[in-house]
Structures are given as C-alpha cells and as structure tokens.
C-alpha cells in the first residue's frame, strides 16, 4: 500500500515536471525567436543582405535546435539554468552582430583572448571571429565543414587545431564582417597566431596590431611588458579608428568584472558541496561566455547574479543539480564543439556531473581600479593567466598543477579528459596527467575527438570511448541503456 502510494506521488511529480519543463522550454523558445527576429527587424535590409554574404548567419537562426539538443529531457536545477543561459547568449550574439552590421566603421576584429573591455571603453564594437567557429558546430555539427575545407584547400594543415582553421576558413570565404583593423595575439596557442596571417590577408590587408604576450608570464616584468603592449594597442586603435580611450568607462567595466569574479568564486564554492547544486554546462557555459567572449556590463552581472541565486536556492533546499547524479567528475580539456550537448548525454546516460572543468578553472583575481595602469595590469594578468593561455604554453606544471589542485578541491570520482586530436600541447601531457591521477587513485577517462570536425571522430565514437570506461573501469550500469548507442549522424536527432 505504502509503495503504491509513493509510486503515485512520483507519477504525479513526474507529470507535473513534464508540464513545467515543457512550459519553460516553450517560454525560452519564444524568447529566442523574439531576439533573433528583433535583430532582423532593427536592421532588416542589412540583415537580409548579410544572410547572403555571411551564410553562417543562417545557421545562427537555427539556435533553437541547439537549445533543444542541450536541454532535451534534462531535469533539476541544471535544466532551468542551461535554458536561461542559452537564451542570454542568443540575445547577446544577436546584439553583437546587429551592432557590427549596423555600424561597420566601429567594428574592430579581435582575436579570442584580446581583452574586449578596452575596446568597449573606447566606444568600439569588437567582433571575435572565433565565436562563430565555436558556436556553429554546436548548432549543426556539419556547419563548419565548408570553412574547414576552404582553409585546408588554402594549405592550412589538417592535423592542427580545427578552431583557428575554421576561423581562417570563414575569413577565406569573405564571411567575417569587415572591420577597420585587427587586433591579434599569441594567445592561446601558436595555431591561433598562425591563422591571423591568413585572416588579415583574406580580409584585404587592413592594419593589424599583434599583442605579444611574454612566454614566461609568471613574473612582474612580464606583466609590465604586457601593459606597455596594451598601451601600444590603445594608441594603435586611436590612430586607426575614431575610438577614444575613456578611462572612466573602463573603470566601470572593471568594477563589473570584479562583481563577476565575486559571483564566479561563489559558484565554484557551491560546486564543491557534497550535493552540488550546479555542474556541467550550467557551470561551464556561463563562465566561458562571461570571461572569454563578453564584456562585463550590468546586464551580464544581473544574469550571473540570477544564476548564483538559483544555485544558492537549490543548495539550501539540498537539491542536486540534476536527478540521478551518481558520479562527480572534473573535465580537463575543452568539451567538443561538435558535441556541445555532451553534458546532456553524460547526465542522462551515466549520471555524470562535472563539478569543475579546465576552461572554468582559472585565476580569478580582482582588478585594481585606482589608476589606468592598475586597471591595465589587472586585465593583463587576467588574460595572461587565463585558462588555455597558460595551459597551452609554458611548462607542464601549468596544466598538471591546476588539474591536481582541482582534484584535491573538488574530489571527483574520476577525471574525464577529452583528448583534442588537434592540440599537440595537451596531448603531450596526457600520460603525465594520467600517471599523477593514478597515484591519487583517481581513474582517468580519455576520449579522443576533434573540436570542430565530427568527420574525424563521430559523436557515437566519442560516446563509445566513455561507455567503455564507465563499464570496464567504473563498473557502472547506465541509467538509460537506450542512450548507449544513438544514431545522431543527421542533425536534429540525438
């Protein structure tokens, strides 16, 4: 009798949850379409023309398919947070491209990991070509193929990192909004540095400023050198654009950045809890967006405060980040862009929640806003010490040391290492990382993939590698065995 009562309650709860989740899904679906339509309506002619010129804009319009892939059948606090963040990202991207298309003379093309805060303070619009390269394969795993082929046919080697190759491919097809100049840097790796030669040439030899971040970034002299370089960049921008440096505006941006750091550190603490209220892409995606792509403005701070509030609420109620979480993990390399929603599968198939990951776990320091020099120093440090830039350069201890600290702090049941076949830097450290984890009796799951090209390793091949690890090493039973093999070679399925 008692059991049947309980079952009845569960059934009611589950029906309620389905209705609620469907409502949440519908609400964000409508909101996302509204954002994209607003982008089109604000500058209809430009956007209409842009659709022909920049064919990836058409792929961006399929964003709601990506939202479905990320959120389909998920549960718990992660479901709401991922929905909310994806919607925020779609709105931000729509605004960024709308501004770029409406005011082309204000556009400056900047490489990923060039501080966008400085450009914002100068009244300029920054367009990061890598963003399209990261987002496109998430929406449609084959959306980047035409750009990869274009880059390879121009001689960019096929076995290097696909991200700069895809970015260069977009430029080679003349699909990067033309700006007044380019700012590139030697971060995060040599692949990115090399691709900007091609990008500059294909855009039409507009002026370029190359930030040269010292290789050994740990000492004060390096930071001073970088600050001088940033000042050179400001001078270059003032000369080549109509932007003027407004230090008060930069101070405001830095203050918002500091608020973001505060929020982020609180979220990290909550992820350490025995019953973590946040994990996977509910942790990774907001960090990636806020600290790699966006400029900290009031809207961003408000959005992240809301995410933190949801985390705290779940924590106080003892609510776990998703139903059926059985394993804590630390994901120690970027998740595959061609399988951006791998988190969904990890949750539903194996009950795996990543409570920390390489791209999130970086140096979070406050920027001293007292003088222009201290602000540049603070921002400089943030980017020199950022995830990826410190991991793909310098001694092995940068990447391994951080991993061991994350293992110590977040106590994972195992480490999951997505081995990006295009990243020779991290591949060379695989055996060392595995050895160190072994010493600490933390199993180490390796799955090979190509960041942006699912022709190299299909999504099912990625899943197979994780399945093998979960079955053979963790001796785990899947939560849902129908998810062990999925035919998702065509888009829209999963």
């Amino acid at each position, binding site marked *: 009798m008692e059991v049947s009562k309980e079952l009845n309650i569960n059934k009611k709860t589950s029906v309620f949850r389905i209705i609620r989740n469907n409502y949440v899904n519908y609400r964000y679906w409508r909101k996302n379409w509204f954002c994209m339509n607003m982008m089109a309506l604000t500058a209809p002619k430009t956007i209409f023309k842009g659709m022909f010129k920049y064919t990836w804009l058409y792929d961006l319009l399929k964003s709601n398919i990506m939202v479905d892939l990320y959120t389909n059948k998920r549960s718990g606090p992660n479901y709401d947070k991922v929905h909310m963040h994806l919607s925020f990202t779609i709105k931000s991207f729509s605004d960024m491209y709308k501004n770029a298309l409406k005011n082309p003379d204000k556009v400056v093309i900047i490489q990923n990991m060039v501080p966008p805060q400085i450009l914002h303070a100068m009244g300029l619009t920054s367009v990061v070509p890598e963003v399209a390269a990261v987002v496109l394969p998430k929406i449609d795993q084959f959306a980047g193929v035409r750009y990869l082929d274009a880059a390879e046919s121009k001689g960019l080697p096929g076995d290097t990192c696909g991200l700069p190759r895809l970015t260069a491919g977009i430029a080679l097809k003349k699909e990067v909004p033309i700006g007044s100049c380019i700012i590139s840097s030697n971060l995060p790796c040599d692949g990115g540095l090399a691709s900007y030669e091609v990008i500059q040439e294909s855009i039409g030899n507009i002026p370029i400023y190359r930030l040269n971040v010292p290789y050994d970034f740990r000492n004060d002299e390096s930071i001073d050198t970088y600050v001088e370089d940033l000042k050179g960049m400001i001078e270059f921008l003032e000369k080549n654009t109509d932007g003027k440096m407004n230090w008060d505006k930069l101070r405001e941006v830095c203050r918002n950045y500091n608020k973001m750091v505060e929020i982020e550190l609180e979220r990290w603490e909550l992820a350490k809890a025995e019953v973590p209220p946040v994990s996977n892409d509910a942790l990774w995606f907001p960090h990636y967006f806020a600290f790699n792509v966006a400029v900290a403005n009031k809207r961003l701070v408000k959005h992240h405060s809301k995410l933190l509030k949801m985390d705290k609420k779940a924590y106080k109620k003892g609510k776990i980040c998703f139903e059926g979480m059985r394993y804590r993990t630390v994901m120690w390399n970027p998740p595959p862009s061609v399988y951006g929603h791998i988190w969904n599968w990890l949750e539903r198939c194996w009950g795996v929640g990543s409570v920390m990951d390489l791209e999130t776990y970086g140096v979070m320091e406050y920027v001293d806003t007292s003088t222009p020099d201290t602000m540049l120093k603070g921002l400089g440090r943030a980017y020199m010490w950022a995830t990826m830039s410190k991991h793909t350069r310098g001694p092995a201890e940068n990447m391994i040391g951080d991993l061991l600290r994350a293992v110590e702090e977040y106590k994972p049941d195992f480490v999951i290492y997505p081995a990006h076949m295009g990243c020779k830097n991290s591949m060379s450290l695989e055996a060392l990382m595995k050895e160190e984890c072994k010493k600490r009796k933390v199993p180490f799951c390796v799955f090979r993939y190509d960041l942006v090209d699912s022709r190299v390793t299909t999504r099912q091949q990625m899943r197979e590698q994780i399945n*093998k690890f979960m079955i053979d090493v963790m001796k785990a039973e899947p939560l849902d065995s129908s998810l062990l093999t999925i035919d998702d070679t065509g888009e829209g399925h999963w």
Partner: protein
Amino acid sequence: MKKFFCGCDVGSTYTKCVILDDEEKIVSNATIRSKMDPCESARLVLLEAVKNADGIDDPKDFAYIVGTGYGRTQVELANENISEISCHAMGVHTVNPNIRTIIDIGGQDVKGINVGEDGSVIDFGMNDKCAAGTGRFFEIMASCFEMTLQEFSDLSLQAKKVVPITSQCSVFAETEVISLLAQKKPAADIAAGIQMSVAKRCFVMIKRVGLEEEVTVTGGCARNEGLILALEKCLKVKIVRLDVDPQLMGALGAAVFAYRKNLVKCSQK
C-alpha cells in the same frame, strides 16, 4: 546432466568461441574469419565449436552464452554481452593470475589494459583511429613480401640489423617498404624494422596506461614472435607467453563470465 558455457568473441577480423564445462575447463574452441555479417559469424563459430565438443550438439543447449568483441550485440543466442576489454582481462587472469598488463593487438585496434589482482580492469588505453600497429597492418606488410604472417615473422627473426621504418601510417609504410626493397636492403632487416615500428607505437600507448609487470600480449599478433621480441626490446620487460592460444583470450574471458553469471542465476533461483 553436464552444463556447458560459451564465450563468443566477434572481432573485426576473426570470430572466436570457447566452450567451458561445469568444472570451468576448456572443452572446445573455434576460430573463423569474420564474415560481413557479425550475426552470421557468431552463428558459424558456435556451430564449429559445438562440432568439436563432446556432450553438446546444439548451440541452443548452452546454459549461458556471453558475447563480446565489436559485434557482441549481434550474437543472437547470447544471454548478455560484455565489453572485450573486461573479457580480455578475465581471460588472461584465468590463464595467468600474475599478469598485470595486457597488450592486445587485434585485427583493427590496439589496446593496453591494466589488470587488477581479481582480473578486473583498472585502466585501459586504445588506438582505434589508425590501422598502423594492428593485425591489419601486418597483413599489408606481409603482402609486400608476398608471404604469410608466419613467414613474415620468421623472416624478421633472421635480421642482422634493424632498418628504421619512419612512417607511422599503413599506407605510407607500405610505400616506404616497397622503396626499401627496391633499394635492395636485406628483406629480413626491413621486416625487423617493421616489427620495431609497431613495438614503438605500442610503447607510447602502454606508457600512457602505465606498465606494470607481468606483461603479456594477446590477440592474433601475439603469435608473431618477431613482434614479441621487438616489444621486449622496447619495453625492457620479459613478455610472458600464455599457455592457451592468446587469440582466444577474449572468448575465454567471456566464457568465464558466462560460467559465473550462471552460478549467480542459479543461486538467485
């Protein structure tokens, strides 16, 4: 009435079957070349193994069947399927419980497996994106010399020195070998170079997993004595030769699992 237990390993190149009796002793085994249809391969190998066994006439009479290998889900009569990594570990543990590291060189992949004291998998690493270093690679190389795999292995043992083969890719290695033969380099030295290039590849993979003694090699390539010697040189360890055909380890492990699963099933009844 005697009970029989079966392990069926549907590999990419060969399909293997091992039958155990109720005293956990091997009573029969069979190996056939894998067909296009894994289901058909499993059916044929079971019939072949049953034909060689006393006391069982029909594959339907097995008390428990475990399927393994890449085509494990296609073994129609299987009661369940278990991954080949676990089965290889269990098979080797049954034959020699002191083994801690297995290098499994299959037809189309290479694996390094760390085995625990109870035969469970501690860790593994694999190369399944490239044919270099697999059984298929050796088949291609042997065909360059117009030899069988056994003849190729024997040839490499006659080498006076090792000609380095630089290429890591099956296709380019073939080109390199053909040009070395055209340069009239001694065939035995080239064959030894091929064995060494594969051994070096295994060395890198096994270092990732972690080398722990004792070490053995399983899979069809374990019969290639030239490769075993090259691995011993590279890894600087003595490779343990197993008493049972190393190609059968996956099927044997599956049969052992079948035996144990049946015990659990009976005790639950």
